[in-house]
């Protein structure tokens, strides 16, 4: 096992007026710092798609911002190894209890812990919601409506895509017309061509996946080298994670980032309003004063922090008068079909999902379920793939070796399927505590009948397509990916946690801005929707501040 000598996890790096320069080995960029005992305009908890975007936009508008992240501040060029084990350092592997009828696996496939959040190891699939999903209750008869018009979201998607220089196809075959992606699509890998071939054989549309990886240089970031280590962190900076985009932008505009800083509790003053956060850094608990607090810790940590901040004024946790904090947690059904191709595929090459089929997101006929799913070509790294073989097929030893000997001839299609929001799927606090004395979150998850029908439908359809592409010896694996919901946004204080600006109905200087706001999951990977929504929320907050509507 190769190990990179990196002190990012042991020692704080963003301190002393500087933060790591992510584009250079061993170099730094200047960073503004704020005293703890003077209230900053915004404290932001988490620096993923929600937190870093907000930090950058608010700092750019002239607000004082301190953003905390429990994870380390890496320089990808020197801190990332081409080694699956070593790179587990990017996952949120703190203890969590997972229950329900279908307990979800937590960590590698749904949450990250680093400055830049889960995007440091996300797989860069950059899709938009189908417009009707923003009104899925009124237009399609399931789930909940979003408190925002799709056209507004559409304009923010364009901004998000430009900020991340998404490499996408010139014509996107589904949904209303969209502007041109800022960078051109990548060359299709052999594994992407399997999807293309299958789709053409079945007469179904397909296209190159819009991908958050550079297909041409951008500033100091190198273009993609197609080595396929994306899921364990991109060492060339081709991946347009939050770390190399919005975190850099935030620093440039005067935001302070505090790495290796775990926020444990939001403090509420006698007037019932937030006054700052307690955080653990360098072995001690500290306190940062703030005029406004934004929670952006993603669907498990955001509810956990709100619930753990309960106080006499808010005995059920902050922002929880609706009782919905932590509820309606959603995942994506991530079942896949795999097969063996006659020709060599070497699917580990390049970003793993370079071709996509959104047919069943846009086609409503012929479905026996609500919601939609997309599916993409696959390229898991060897350990990842072997692990899924062991856990799904139960093969081991010589048998496993035999299966793995087909690795270079394998191809697969994996779905991202929308699960339904259910109140019983939720995050709660358990009685156990972690090393910092914080209650460990307990996550309960069960598929509903609709989720299962969708998974069956996808298994059949993906299998058919893989077979049409020439794959043999098909088999099927089950898993989940991504997290959505847990702090739904909406127009009604009784049925949502925050409003369309992410502002709590209960505490007017407390905001949520991350993937936990999703009222419904949608059948596409969530990051672009989170980034677009965060850009939208940033504009609303900036407008509120201009109107004198903030403190």
């Amino acid at each position, binding site marked *: 096992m190769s190990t990179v000598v990196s002190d990012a996890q042991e020692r704080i790096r963003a301190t002393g007026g500087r933060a790591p320069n992510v584009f250079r080995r061993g170099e730094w960029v200047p960073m503004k710092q704020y005293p703890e005992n003077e209230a900053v305009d915004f404290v932001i908890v988490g620096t993923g798609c929600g937190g870093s975007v907000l930090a950058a936009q608010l700092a750019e508008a002239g607000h004082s911002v301190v953003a905390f992240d429990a994870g380390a501040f890496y320089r990808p060029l020197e801190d990332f190894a081409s080694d699956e084990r070593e790179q587990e350092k990017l996952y949120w592997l703190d203890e969590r209890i997972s229950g329900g009828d279908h307990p979800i696996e937590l960590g590698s496939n749904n949450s990250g812990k680093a400055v830049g959040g889960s995007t440091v190891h996300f797989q860069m699939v950059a899709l938009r919601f189908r417009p009707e999903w923003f009104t899925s209750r009124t237009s399609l008869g399931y789930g909940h409506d979003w408190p925002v018009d799709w056209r507004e979201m559409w304009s923010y998607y364009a901004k998000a895509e430009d900020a991340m220089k998404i490499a996408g196809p010139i014509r996107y075959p589904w949904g209303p017309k969209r502007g041109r992606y800022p960078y051109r699509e990548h060359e299709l890998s052999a594994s992407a061509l399997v999807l293309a071939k299958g789709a053409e054989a079945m007469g179904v549309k397909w296209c190159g996946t819009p991908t958050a990886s550079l297909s041409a240089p951008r500033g100091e970031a190198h273009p993609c080298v197609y080595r396929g280590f994306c899921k364990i962190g991109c060492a060339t900076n081709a991946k347009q994670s939050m770390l190399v985009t919005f975190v850099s932008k935030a620093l440039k505009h005067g935001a302070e980032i505090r790495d290796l800083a775990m926020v444990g509790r939001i403090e509420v003053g006698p007037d019932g309003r937030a006054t700052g956060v307690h955080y653990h850094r360098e072995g001690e608990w500290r306190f940062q004063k703030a005029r406004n607090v934004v929670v952006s810790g993603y669907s498990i940590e955001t509810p956990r922090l709100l619930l753990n901040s309960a106080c006499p004024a808010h005995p059920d946790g902050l922002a929880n008068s609706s009782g919905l904090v932590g509820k309606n947690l959603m995942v994506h059904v991530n079942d896949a079909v795999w097969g063996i191709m*006659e020709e060599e595929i070497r699917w580990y090459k390049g970003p793993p999902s370079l071709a996509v089929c959104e047919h069943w997101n846009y086609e409503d006929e012929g479905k026996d379920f609500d919601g939609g799913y997309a599916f993409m070509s696959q390229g898991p790294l060897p350990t990842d793939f072997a692990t899924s073989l062991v856990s799904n097929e139960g093969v081991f030893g010589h048998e496993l070796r035999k299966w793995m000997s087909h690795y270079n001839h394998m191809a697969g299609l994996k779905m991202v399927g929308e699960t339904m929001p259910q109140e019983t799927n939720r995050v709660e606090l358990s009685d156990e505590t972690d090393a910092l004395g914080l209650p460990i979150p307990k996550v309960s998850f069960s598929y509903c009948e609709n989720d299962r029908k969708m998974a069956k439908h996808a298994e059949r359809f993906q299998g058919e397509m893989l077979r049409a592409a020439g794959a043999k010896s098909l088999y099927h694996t089950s898993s989940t990916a991504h997290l959505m919901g847990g702090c739904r946004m909406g127009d009604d204080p009784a049925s949502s946690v925050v409003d369309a600006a992410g502002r709590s109905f209960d505490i007017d200087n407390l905001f949520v801005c991350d993937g936990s706001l999703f009222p419904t999951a949608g059948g596409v990977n969530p990051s672009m929707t989170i980034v677009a929504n965060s850009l939208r929320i940033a504009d609303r907050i900036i407008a509120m501040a201009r109107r004198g509507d903030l403190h």
Partner: protein
Amino acid sequence: MAVPRPDQHARASRDIAALHDARPASVAEQPNMRSGTLLAVTGIGLVAASLAGIAVASRGGNRPARAARYAAWGSALLAGSVLADSAMEHYRGNFRRKEMFAAPVVAAGTLATALATAVTSRATSYKAALFGGTIATGLFGLGFHLRNILSRPGGLSWNNLFYRAPFGAPGALALAGLAGVGAVAADRADRRERLGQKGHGRRAGYGLGLFTAAGLFGLTAEVGLLHFRGAFHDKLMYAPILALPFTGAAIMAATADPQPRRRSLARKSLEATAGLGLVGTGLHAYGVSRNMGGFANWTQNLFQGPPIAAPPSLAGLALMGFAALDLLDRHGKDPSHGPR
């Protein structure tokens, strides 16, 4: 939803065992050559072809006319660019088909012939035949490249146009052949004009001018496509797609009606195009340095692009244009004897 289903599992295992035994032996895809060696061989090929050309030439014969020299140097530059580019790109494509060896081999032959044409007037018929072969190879190449594009899912899609075998490369080979044919024609025309047979210089200039313009328009399409693929991430990437069609139009105008003002405008824009070829080579080198590892990782990054060998072909085309102008200067309206 739990998945291990013993029956299915047992069946799959059996299938897989069968397939395992039947699996085709993995093909030795990569030729037995490292990219560093390949680049060295390409470099040696360039030098060898040049030396061969000059060796042929050193055995006497008259010095060709100026227009012929220009066109021959243009042909040599184009062929050299194709030699370097096709050797690398076809290596990258594993020389999967034998035909893929044709491009670098023919380009090397063309380079040698072009250099010989630049220094001596001997053996013009052989040279013309060889250049004709170059053109034919280029046209066949276009066919192969088109088939390569259409053979992939998506067919004539942007993705395949961006990343499959490019139209421009065999086009450049055909142009090298055309420039060579033009050089031979210019030399012959010059001889006839000197014998008092009027009209030959004008006709040769006309042909060379048209081919140059066609080449410039073709190159605009190729550069446009590839710079679009690079999302014009650097604004300088617009320069060739503005300059090339302008130059094409200028040389067309000068060819159609070779009056002094038009010839002078065409000359200036050709000079700018040649300059752009030089600057572009530098910029492409800078582009290579922006890949992960920069020039320290040259064996990989020279392939990763942008192709350093591509921009010199602008200078090659410009030389072809200068040849046309030289003929038009002498034999067009208000003849002059070229610049100065």
